[in-house]
């Protein structure tokens, strides 16, 4: 579904991402972990066109995304969330969902409303439907951001950047459940950046570890966390 070939991003002399080769199968939920500053967010930015890679290529469902601007990537089914939720804060919760629907340019207003109401119901946000998004708690904002992508009929691959950071356990469970549900019922592929190992264990059969902008190792979570290099990357070499 999603594949990168030799993806590299250089900021001046700093290599934020170096030669990343990653391949995620259709319907997979992949975890992307690594210490702070490993280049995880840069990687998501490259995938979604927020930043242009210095070299390398990105493929989505057999077509290259190179040279595509962010909005055309979104319309091809590649959506994302942001680590610090970028909601439209002065707009209502409902409007935040509707914009996502219309942005990808399909369906009627009635479809959009039905879908939004359904999602809000599932997420337990119905009573906040007409409140400004700025009134939501941090966790609710993260949840609303996640729902945004599910508004899009043609969503195929959803990139979540630290979706669980600062989210309380109950909301976190709701999010995990929604991800599972959309993965199973609609075969949506996920790439989840997170530091929360327990959630990654629940969701992801495979994880990729990034450190210093490079892929360190790829495999099942328990496998990679037992790896000496990964422990070094997280804790520093003096510990091993």
């Amino acid at each position: 579904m999603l594949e990168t070939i030799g993806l590299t991003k250089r900021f001046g002399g700093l290599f934020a991402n170096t030669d990343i080769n990653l391949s995620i199968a259709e319907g997979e939920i992949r975890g992307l972990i690594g210490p702070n500053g490993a280049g995880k967010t840069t990687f998501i930015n490259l995938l979604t066109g927020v930043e242009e890679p210095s070299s390398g290529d990105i493929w989505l469902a057999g077509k290259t995304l190179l040279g595509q601007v962010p909005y055309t990537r979104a319309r091809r089914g590649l959506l994302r969330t942001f680590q610090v939720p970028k909601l439209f804060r002065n707009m209502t919760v409902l409007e935040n969902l509707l914009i996502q629907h219309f942005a990808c340019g399909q369906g009627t207003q009635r479809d959009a409303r039905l879908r939004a109401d359904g999602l809000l119901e599932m997420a337990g946000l119905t009573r906040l439907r007409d409140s400004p998004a700025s009134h939501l708690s941090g966790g609710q904002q993260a949840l609303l951001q996640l729902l945004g992508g599910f508004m899009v009929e043609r969503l195929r691959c959803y990139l979540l950047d630290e979706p669980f950071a600062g989210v309380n356990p109950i909301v976190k469970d709701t999010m995990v459940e929604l991800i599972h549900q959309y993965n199973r019922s609609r075969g949506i592929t996920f790439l989840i950046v997170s530091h929360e190992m327990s959630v990654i264990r629940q969701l992801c059969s495979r994880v990729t570890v990034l450190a210093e902008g490079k892929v360190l190792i790829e495999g099942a979570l328990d496998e990679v966390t037992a790896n000496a290099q990964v422990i070094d990357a997280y804790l520093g070499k003096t510990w091993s």
Partner: protein
Amino acid sequence: MLLGVDLQLLSQYVIAGLMIGVLYALMALGVTFIYSVMKMINWSMGQFYMLGSFIQYLLVVRWLGPDLWFVALPITAACVFVIGAILQLVLIRPMFTGGVERRDEYATVITIALLLLLQSLATVLNGPDEHTPGSHLPNLTVGTLPVSGATLAASLGGIAALILFAVLLRRTWVGLALRAAAQSRIAVQTAGVDLMRLDMIAFGIGVALAAIAGALLAPVYLVYPTNGAVTTTKGFEIIIIGGLGSIPGALVGGLLLGLVEALGSVFIAPAYQNAYGFVLLIALLLIRPTGLFGERLRAA
């Protein structure tokens, strides 16, 4: 009598001030709207006001006649919307697609160049002559107060334009996208909005608002190549009074400026009408540097 001023005279000035204030608000709204979506200031706003007044004048004098001014108005707005959209496409869009480093500086240079270009072009084509489309609207009396028909029509037209603008923002999908873009330009793009096209629409709407003000005021003030200068100054005064990027700020600031000018004219002297706004502006900046509705900018 209030401070030695006849109350009837006072209320007449206040009403006239508020009526002109609506048009000031329209002008300020255009500037603030373009800023809030595109994060750039369009310094050539007054020249779109001028374009609006000229197009309105030509339509009324050549084809429609002064009685059909309200037919000419939407045509003028549509023409300037299209002109604005084309100029955005050719001159302003490149700074968002190429890797321009100092975007606000580029925007300043290009819109000031546009200001000079449009103003000089108008002078070449028209000469320095002043025109008026004329108006057959009778002067009314509200109670015992005389009200100029053309000014009343202009302010009612301005209110209609403001309502239309509000409906567009609140009730349409383009309005939803415009409001979203004003809050996060990155997030609307990753959501799937074609931001470059949206910018074109925003710029067109913003300059059309100025053109509507120009068209409505054509019979009240005159039509000539540099008539945008005074209104531009007032538009920017209002932006600072109301707070940059704030739509309520533009509306309240516009009315407030009209009111202050009227009161200054009554209590001090009408000759300094254009100066009272600056007094208000300086006084307000001392108390509230962000403007009435402005917010402190946060870096990053």
